[in-house]
């Protein structure tokens, strides 16, 4: 067992973990952060995407011990303290960017990271930017619209439409 200290969604945690424990399993099983989900075992689907020190990572490809000393943000930690939705969360709702919702936490976390890197992406840049996240329900069109809408809102302009 190895001792780690992490901050997750603004709270501090100290735990002993097996060195082989994946970050996603630590988040779900030890911390009860079950908003982050597991969709595959080959790091293809991106459902488990979280932010590790501000960067989007697939939390199934990070060992919990690698996160020692880090700041982690999950889907449960992006809304404002007053419960106000993050613009990307709001845009997914507004543009119907989800159906079953299983990919949604990862998709939202990846989209936030994409918009940080590129605040006004083209449709192609969005499609390529979220290529690491699989959705089986939406055909992605409304996810693209949602990211465009969020980009518009976050840059202060009126919402973009696909």
């Amino acid at each position: 067992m190895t001792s780690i200290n992490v901050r997750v969604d603004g709270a501090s945690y100290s735990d002993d973990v097996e060195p082989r424990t994946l970050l996603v399993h630590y988040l779900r099983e030890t911390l009860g952060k079950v908003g982050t989900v597991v969709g595959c075992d080959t790091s293809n689907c991106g459902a488990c995407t979280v932010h590790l020190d501000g960067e989007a990572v697939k939390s199934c490809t990070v060992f919990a011990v690698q996160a020692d000393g880090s700041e982690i943000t999950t889907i449960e930690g992006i809304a404002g303290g007053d419960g106000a939705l993050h613009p990307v969360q709001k845009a997914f709702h507004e543009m119907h960017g989800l159906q079953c919702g299983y990919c949604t936490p990862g998709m939202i976390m990846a989209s936030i990271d994409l918009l940080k890197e590129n605040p006004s992406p083209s449709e192609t840049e969005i499609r390529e930017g979220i290529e690491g996240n699989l959705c089986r329900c939406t055909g992605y069109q409304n996810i693209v619209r949602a990211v465009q809408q969020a980009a518009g809102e976050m840059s202060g302009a009126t919402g973009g439409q696909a």
Partner: protein
Amino acid sequence: MTVTEDAAAVAPAKEVGQPRRRKEDARLITGRTTWTDNMVLPGMLHLAVVRSPVAHARITAVDVSAAQQAPNVVAVFTGRDLAEEQGSIPCAWPVTPDMVNPGHPSIAVDQVNHVGEAVAIVVGRSKAAATDAVELVDVDYDLLPPVLDLEEAVADGSGLVHDQLASNTSYHFVFDAGDAGTGADTEQAFADAEVVVSRRFVQQRLIPAFMEPRSVVVQPQGENYTMWSATQVPHVLRVMAAMVTGIPEHKLRVIAPDVGGGFGGKLQVNPEEILCLLLARRLGKPVKWTETRSESLMAAHHGRGQVQFIDIASDRQGNVKGLRVRLLADMGAYLRLITPGVPALGAFMFPGIYKFPAYRFECDGVFTNKVPTDAYRGAGRPEATFAVERIMDELAVELGMDPLELRRKNWIQADEFPFTTVAGLEYDSGDYEQATREALELLGYDELRAEQKRRRESGDPVQLGIGFSTFTEMCGLAPSRVLGSLSYGAGGWESASIRMLPTGKVEVVTGSTPHGQGHETAWSQLVADQLGVPFEDVEVLHGDTAISPRGMDTYGSRSLVVGGTAVVKAAEKVVAKARKVAAHLLEASEDDLEFADGKFAVRGTPGATVGIQEIALAVFAAHNYPEDIEPSIDAEATFDPVNFSFPHGTHLCAMEVDTDTGMVKIRKYACVDDVGTIVNPLIVEGQIHGGLAQGIAQALYEEAVYDADGNLTTGSFVDYLVPTAADLPHFDTATTVHAAPGNPIGAKGVGEAGCIASTPAVVNAALDAVRHLGVSDILMPLTPERVWRAIRTGGDGGARATAGTNAYGGAQTESTAGVATPASELGGDR
């Protein structure tokens, strides 16, 4: 009671038709979800399944002693341990009286019949402990040659999947329109025909690949059991699980919490669900099983898997005269819930929208050493639509006709509805010409045809093609009597109830269990209109057999058509009950009351009104109500449709094919669908999008590939190509509306339309681009290699990859090495 001023208030807008944002989203976008795998119960044990690495073998020994000694392992069970109590996974659809069902153990006892079949189960204190010990279970297999190829499986001298059976054929299902009295003699039609075109099409195996892996938790409480499962069908599962395990139905509660997609893949009574029940009963402890993605792709049921022999007859002018269909349908190793019924359901859709005077359908259900097939989005109808839309193009080529003109010449005209087809179905409503006209405009058809001509003339290495799919489908499953006539083991009704709470809020209980379709939102819209209450005042309850005791769940584009109608009927009963109370409170005759916008008003007496939400409080208090009624306005309804509904549409795909590399790229995709009355356009558009993605993926990307030894070589998302955002185009979608006459909502169903229609449009487009190069078919999925090879060498592009490579066949695991089959010696089974 309050008597309000008769304010000239503007009537609230109707909810039906509004693009309401979904209620479901609040929890899904914030991670406050209840997926089954989130569940943690005190003392819960974790299961890990030891699965067969070989496709076909006798089990000669299972040694679990090392696994039992592993740290934090509580118990290990083999098939032998559970043989007496496991029963058989049920098959609810014996499509013929003499259908052969070999039985389907949840865990193999003496023999394994596909890779991934359960052979032992490790129970651990943690998932990790159980998974670690899986490696320690030692199973000896006496290998048998696998049966993998459908055509070889039915040939004389084939090896047998189940050696106690006489053949690999489970059933032979025939629908003959001549015999049924719905059409002319098919053999005669072909004998008399001026033109006959025959083709062999292949529907590759697909994997539903819902994003949430399957997960089951079972909690024993005395002699009662609660099962949480990532299922589409908690109600069906409860009945079936009770029958399989002997747990009395009233002692078993099944809950489908948030469920992450299904697409038919969770329309099942899974072996693992039964095993969880058996082990929770054995151990007296809560148990959990959650699959990995690799397990899911390997062991959850697959879809499609047909070889289709299609013959079409016509005269020289292009008037179709007959259609003959012979299918080999891959059952896999066992029959699961509706395995045999999927191709049989498709039997009625092969004639599509065309007026064939004669039609004959024959299907052999064939066992192979692969995981069973079962429902996958469309279930029978995509296969049928593909075949008819492909053969219409082939006939057009044969006749030298424009493929659209050929379709137009033969399709049912708008003024001919309702139209009884050669398959005996009564198509309800629609206008194929209108949908086609609008789709052509949406695509920009004329400009693209002009560009195609330019590219053709200039010998551009990138050629352009346009593909059509003018389709219909049968939805709203299903009239119970029709299901009975097809020997299905249950009905097709749906149930709903409405509970009026004292504060005026409304609980709607539906038997249709959603997993992404937005029932909570759409049902709220229906009830808001019916009862005149605010959308926000409605809560929709579902997916728990203790809360929603009666239901048939969600599949076959049935939820709104059948389940939504049950909700509307229940609301009508609530209003009827409330009317009696209103008359009493307003001291008026029932006949003098009008109900609008949630209020009863006395005709001709301004100001005398009472709201239905106030009546809910009045009957709760029950101080003052009519003597001849019970103090409740709650109601329930069960709706059993008398006919299917028939969405239709025209899908057009413009495809670029790079003849140098074989790469295909969808240039533009346009479709106009008629799904009847639209309750929520946002949800309808989303369903179309998602269906298109899956239908296009069948055409271009997805295939469950087995090698010559029966190993699934597309066993992870690295190899099984669920498309990403970058793999799919923008979709131009639109709708026409011809209300369904068979239900008061007017809805036809939308869940499967995009998936059913799109596949042939895409393939027809690719062929249209390269047909002048001598290509007349390319196997799906249209990989660059297949397209390139078809262009270079003619033929259909051949098997998935070059002989000797992993995807083609010949790949062997250590345990299968040395088991030679004719196919493996050739380097592949495909």
